């Protein structure tokens, strides 16, 4: 049984077919990467999977349950959360507050609990704050907890987006270029972090241009170009694939 599976999905913007008859699947506990040149349709694929766009054709299954056509909000409750290529934090809120908004759907008290400050309010809020703080600590952001999100460095903001996605309770994380803008040390940390996520029972679908990260963490790789799948396989298979090198870098001499 696949955790997530897309069957023959297509999406066009006017005349441009951004995703063209694409198939892929990911099993629980795997790290699967999607790579490809700029404009290949990777982010569009994420937007489809998370319900921002509706497919023209094809089906998507999460735990064998069809999720294409579901509202983006509902997809989160099916256990899929994501980060954005162009960071979309709640920039005017604190780091911990960003995580707490992420935890909203499992922050279980009512409007009136909040208004009248019931015992339940304090119990749930305190628990969520502690969990949020631990989550941030696991990403090395504990010193930044009280800061406002837009005061973080680029790399820290990317980490915060991951923390916020994890706070939703989703076990399948879609990470769109998490290493972009990170320095060498940060992307190395990220690599370790993603491996650890796997050990914690998370499943990761990763879009990434940083090949050090991709080749090191991926169990399986799909290569996309012009919306189509041009190759798939294990990292060493992709590394030695001429077509991939051609499409990806326009030069078969370059080694991935």
């Amino acid at each position: 049984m696949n955790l997530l599976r897309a069957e023959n999905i297509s999406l066009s913007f006017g005349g441009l077919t951004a995703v063209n008859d694409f198939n892929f699947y990911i099993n629980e506990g795997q790290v699967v990467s999607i790579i490809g040149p700029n404009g290949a349709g990777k982010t569009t694929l994420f937007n489809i999977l998370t319900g921002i766009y509706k497919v023209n054709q094809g089906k998507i299954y999460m735990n064998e349950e069809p999720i294409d056509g579901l509202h983006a909000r509902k997809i989160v409750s099916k256990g899929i959360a994501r980060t954005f290529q162009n960071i979309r934090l709640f920039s005017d809120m604190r780091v911990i507050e960003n995580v707490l908004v992420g935890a909203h759907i499992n922050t279980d008290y009512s409007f009136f609990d909040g208004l009248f400050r019931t015992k339940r309010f304090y119990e749930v809020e305190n628990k969520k704050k502690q969990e949020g703080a631990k989550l941030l600590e696991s990403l090395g952001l504990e010193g930044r907890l009280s800061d406002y999100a837009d005061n973080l460095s680029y790399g820290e903001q990317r980490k915060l987006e991951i923390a916020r996605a994890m706070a939703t309770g989703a076990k399948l994380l879609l990470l769109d270029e998490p290493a972009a803008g990170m320095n060498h040390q940060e992307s190395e940390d990220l690599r370790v972090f993603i491996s650890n996520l796997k050990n914690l029972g998370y499943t990761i679908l990763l879009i990434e241009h940083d090949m050090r990260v991709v080749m090191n963490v991926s169990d399986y790789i799909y290569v996309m170009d012009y919306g189509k799948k041009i190759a798939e396989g294990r990292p060493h298979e992709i590394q030695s694939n001429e077509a991939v090198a051609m499409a990806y870098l326009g030069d078969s001499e370059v080694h991935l």
Partner: protein
Amino acid sequence: MSEKFTVDKIVIASIILLLLGLPLLGFSQYVMRIVILMGIYTILALGLNILVGYTGLVSLGHAGFFAIGAYGTAYFMIQHSVGFIVALTIGTLLSGFMGFVLGLPTIRLSGTYLSIVTLGFAMIVQVVIMNWDSVTNGTLGMSQIPKPNILGYDLNLANHGIYYLMLFLLGLVTLGCYTIIHSKIGRTLRAIKSDELATTMMGIHIDRYKILAFVLSASITGLAGGFYATLSSYIDHNSFGFDLSILILCMVILGGMGTIRGMYLGAALLIIFPEIARPLMSWRFVVYGFVLIIMMHFRPQGVLGWRSRRKYPIPGEVKKSYRMVEVEE
């Protein structure tokens, strides 16, 4: 940081003491009336702030909700001889319900479109007031609205009862705003203001929260309206024009959108201003406009619109053993 914390507490405690003891200072009824008006406008600003300051939805029609609260309360007090508390509750609920009715179809509209619809709403309310004679007494307005009577006591300016009633309502609304904003509800509203798509991607039903913001905002505004009706004992359609909606918006922006303290300052400044600058009265909107332009340029967050630099309180100790990544710096 803890120093700042105690400074805050001292400032707040002093203000509360001052407000409680104000009648002892022997001000004239004229001055006390202005102070009560400040209180009403602070409530109005707090109400609009929920929409504009926290959720990022700009309403230009809050005079409409103010009117519904005022007319609703006055109508039930005069025509049905209902007691003040019940009438005020009805006025508040009525206004909140209109907030729901207006919010439901308009919630998908963004920015300018929403503002224009709310503007139209307030105009419609005014037209209805002028024409629905049997309820609103048409253009003649409603007069002899009774002063509040609570448990057999008449509350008026002379015995300061109406002042303390204002303080009570202001305190209630302030506390309510505080608890709502400092809960998952307020966090969600602020998240919506910051990024609607990202908020949706947290699994949050943002339309629901926008409507909730509308209802809360309209209810608070209606409450202020009901109280205003009994304070002034006469209301007509002229009291609820476009300039009122703009005035409230100016208070919110001047004081500091998305803060509670700012609403107090914004209302105080813009109510005092015409009193001390009578000759400028006819120019006041020019002055307000000018103030807003200056503010937008030099201090867009408003006079008191700073970010808290206090540490965010996390209950209990966070253990150090949860780190998965060691970060060297």
